[in-house]
Structures are given as structure tokens and as C-alpha cells.
């Protein structure tokens, strides 16, 4: 096939999209919340990590094929460190990394129809001075990305469910909720999305972590601290203390 066969190319792209969505089925959601204390990232895995440190003020939560998550992770970590070393850590921003490094690479990878596609959906987070300066960027497998404005980003394989979960969480969240309460809300939504049930706030004192542990799943939580003594703001948190 050559590029002068547009119909076959469009067909191939559509097939590729369908194939990736099919491969993503079964992946479970990840979350990012902009909070007064910082940006909270949460994922539930079965041995493979889903939440990662990227640079001093940036982090990533992703779902999909572990090898493809690794490719994206390495790409953005290398770009961030090259930029930070060549210029300064303050020059490393998500907008620049996505606009000039990861976005074009993901799009080009998606459109190279003779190579294996990347099976990844993710959210990138960058901590700001205040909540209004936080950046949450929802990135799709085809290289499209959008910056979230409402302080919540849910990454899921079904777009409609993702939008509904995001909307529901925004309605539940308030400035006064603790990180523990936000984590519990995220786990409740995680359970609802994976079980295909309606969203409901967890009951006070309800054990959320124990059933997941029984299923062989581990909860991963990290915070990009808004204020801290170190230039590195990424802090893995103990799920046992939060939920």
C-alpha cells in the first residue's frame, strides 16, 4: 500500500483505532486530582506500576500495555532531563514536553500503520505554585491531548464513562476534603467503573483496600507536593495510611 491509496489508508487507521481500543479493554482507570496539598495520582494495578515520577514537578499515571507505558515514560523522562540539564529545571514544563516532544512522537507512531501501535492512555500532571497553576494533561493513544480545567482527570478506556466519572467526581470534591477522602472517592469510582455500577460515595469507615488486596491488586498513590523542602516534589504515599 502506498500513500496514494487514501481509502486504504483511512481504512487502516480506522482498523488501528479499533484494534487499540479492543486491546485496552480490561485496563482499569487511573486518576489525577489537583488539591490544595498538591496533585494526587492514584492507580490500581496487578504488579505493574501505573503511577510514575517524570521530573522535579511532573508525574504520570497511565493504563495500557506495560511495554508501551515504558516507551512513553522513557521518552518523556529523557526529554525532560535533557531540557532541565541544558537550560534549567524551571524550563521543563508539561506544555513544552507535550507540544514539542511527546505529542508529535505519539501522533507519528499512531499513523505509521506498518508498525505496532502504542496501547496507552495516560494523564500527565505538573504541580504549580497554587491550584490554579496546576496542569493536568489527558493524553490519548493517537497523540491527541487536552489540558483539564476542573482539577480532575480520569483516564478510562470508555470515553463516555470517563466523562461521567470526571463529572461525578467534580461534584463530590470540595477544598476541605482530605487526601484520604479523595483517595477513597477515587477507589469508589474505580470500583464502579470496573464493575459497571453507578457511582456512589463510599460509606464512612468502609474497607476499600482489603477487597482489592484479596483480588491480588495493589493501590498506588503519589503526591506532587505543592510545598516541600526539596526541589523534587514527587512523593510516593502509603495506600495503607490513605485508604
Amino acid at each position, binding site marked *: 500500500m502506498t500513500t496514494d491509496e487514501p481509502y486504504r489508508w483511512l481504512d487502516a487507521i480506522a482498523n488501528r483505532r479499533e484494534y487499540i481500543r479492543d486491546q485496552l479493554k480490561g485496563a482499569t482507570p487511573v486518576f489525577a486530582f489537583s488539591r490544595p496539598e498538591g496533585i494526587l495520582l492514584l492507580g490500581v494495578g496487578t504488579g505493574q506500576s501505573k503511577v510514575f515520577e517524570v521530573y522535579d514537578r511532573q508525574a504520570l499515571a497511565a493504563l495500557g500495555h506495560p511495554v508501551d507505558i515504558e516507551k512513553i515514560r522513557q521518552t518523556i523522562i529523557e526529554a525532560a532531563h535533557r531540557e532541565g540539564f541544558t537550560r534549567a529545571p524551571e524550563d521543563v514544563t508539561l506544555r513544552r514536553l507535550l507540544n514539542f516532544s511527546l505529542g508529535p512522537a505519539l501522533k507519528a507512531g499512531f499513523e505509521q500503520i506498518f508498525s505496532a501501535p502504542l496501547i496507552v492512555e495516560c494523564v500527565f500532571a505538573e504541580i504549580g505554585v497554587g491550584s490554579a497553576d496546576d496542569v493536568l494533561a489527558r493524553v490519548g493513544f493517537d497523540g491527541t491531548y487536552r489540558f483539564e480545567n476542573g482539577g480532575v482527570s480520569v483516564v478510562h478506556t470508555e470515553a463516555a464513562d470517563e466523562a461521567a466519572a470526571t463529572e461525578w467526581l467534580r461534584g463530590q470534591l470540595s477544598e476541605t476534603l482530605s487526601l484520604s477522602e479523595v483517595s477513597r472517592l477515587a477507589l469508589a469510582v474505580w470500583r464502579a467503573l470496573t464493575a459497571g455500577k453507578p457511582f456512589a460515595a463510599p460509606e464512612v469507615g468502609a474497607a476499600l483496600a482489603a477487597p482489592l488486596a484479596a483480588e491480588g491488586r495493589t493501590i498506588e498513590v503519589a503526591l506532587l507536593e505543592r510545598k516541600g523542602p*526539596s526541589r523534587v516534589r514527587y512523593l510516593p504515599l502509603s495506600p495503607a495510611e490513605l485508604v
Partner: protein
Amino acid sequence: MNGDGDFLSLLPKSAFGSVSGEAKTAALEATTVFAFHYADGVIVAGDHRATAGNIVFSDRTEKILELDRHSLMAIAGSPSIAIEMARTLQTAFDFYRRSQLQPMSLAAKMRALSRLLHDNLPATLQGFGTVAPIFAGLDPATNRPSIFFYDPLGAQFEGVDYAGSGSGSGSIKSVLHFLEQWGGPKPREMTLAQAVVLANRLLMTAAEFDTATGGVDPLRNDFATIKLLGAAGVRTLSVAEQADFWRQSLS
């Protein structure tokens, strides 16, 4: 020729130089830094002075640099090269931890600094780029902090009790040796408050005998730069905390 048998101090001089006097351009140097064990970990301290010959170039130099949450480097010698080494190590350690999803081992961190020093050999031989740092790192396996010092060519040595570098370090090492042998309490038995007061007194002592060492002046709220390394990682001690400890020592 100064006849003290120190080959490194001989290197900057021309083999065919004048026998009648010094014809050396003063290079910028950072002095004085030291580290010693106290009861809860390692204390790393330094003055704020950078000099070029008999000129005080700056009295606000930051010489104790945090490389990551578990390692520190105290710099003595050429600040431009030492600071660039610290920046390279910071990026290397962070990059390794983030990309490999595990921290770099203490041995690898020490080697990385050793390699940078070795690569700096041409500048060292020319006499204007010498760096003789102190490195303090936490071993993730044992959670125990250790002190290492280096010669300008990259050889590393463990400072079992203490280490010092820079022009004022001679006096400081003498006092620390004395205290470790015959002191009460010995530095490694000291509380944080006692260790902080000792660190400031050591700098005052060094400044008494070395013009390149900027002393501290508690009356003007001017204290040493101090960072601590313990099981929880690196912590920077604020001026307010040092002032509190100093006041307690007077009461």
C-alpha cells in the same frame, strides 16, 4: 619552590618558572567545608566564602549541595567546576531513579563523582580547576549515612569519623581528631544541638587561622551552612534553628 613535598601544589607552577618569586594568577576557590558523624547521622557544614588569592570574591557562596534526597556534596576548590559537577550528579542520580524505578546505589554514586574528578584531570593539572569535594551518602540497604572525601584526581576515602576540605580544614580536622579521641562527648555521641554548636565553633576556629575561611558571627545572625543526612534523608538546617541551638548553648 616551597619545599613542603606537596606535588599537587607544585603542578600549577611552570617547570621553568622564576626562582625569585611567585608569578601566579589567583584562581577562584571555595573554602572551607567539613562533615562529621553525630548521634543521629551526619552533619555537613561550610562557610560562605569564595576567594581569589587575597581577594574575598563572595561571602554568600553555597557550598553544601543536595544531590538528591539521600546524598550531599560539599565543595572546595574551583566553584565553577565543582558546581557543574554537582549539577551533573544531580541530573544523573535523578535520571537513574526515575528511569530505572530504583535509586542508584551508594557505591555507584561515589564512583560517578570519582569519574567526574578523574575527567577533570586536565584542569587540575593546569592548576585553576582543582576540586576536592566531600560526599555524604545514605546506603539504602543499611539506612546508614557515610562520609567520603576525594583527592583532586578522583581517589575516594571514607571519613570514618569526619572529613574536611579546603584551606581552613586543617584546624578543623585537628580539633575533630582531638574531640574524637579525648572529647566528652565525642562528636559521634553529640545531640543535634551540640553538633550544630560545634560546627559553628569549628568555623570560627578555622577563620582565626585562615583568611580564606569566612567565619560565622552569631551576634549578627550569621551562621554556617548546615545540612543533615540521617535515615530520613537530607535536611537543611535553617538559620533560626541554628540561632536557637546557639542561644541554648549560652544558657
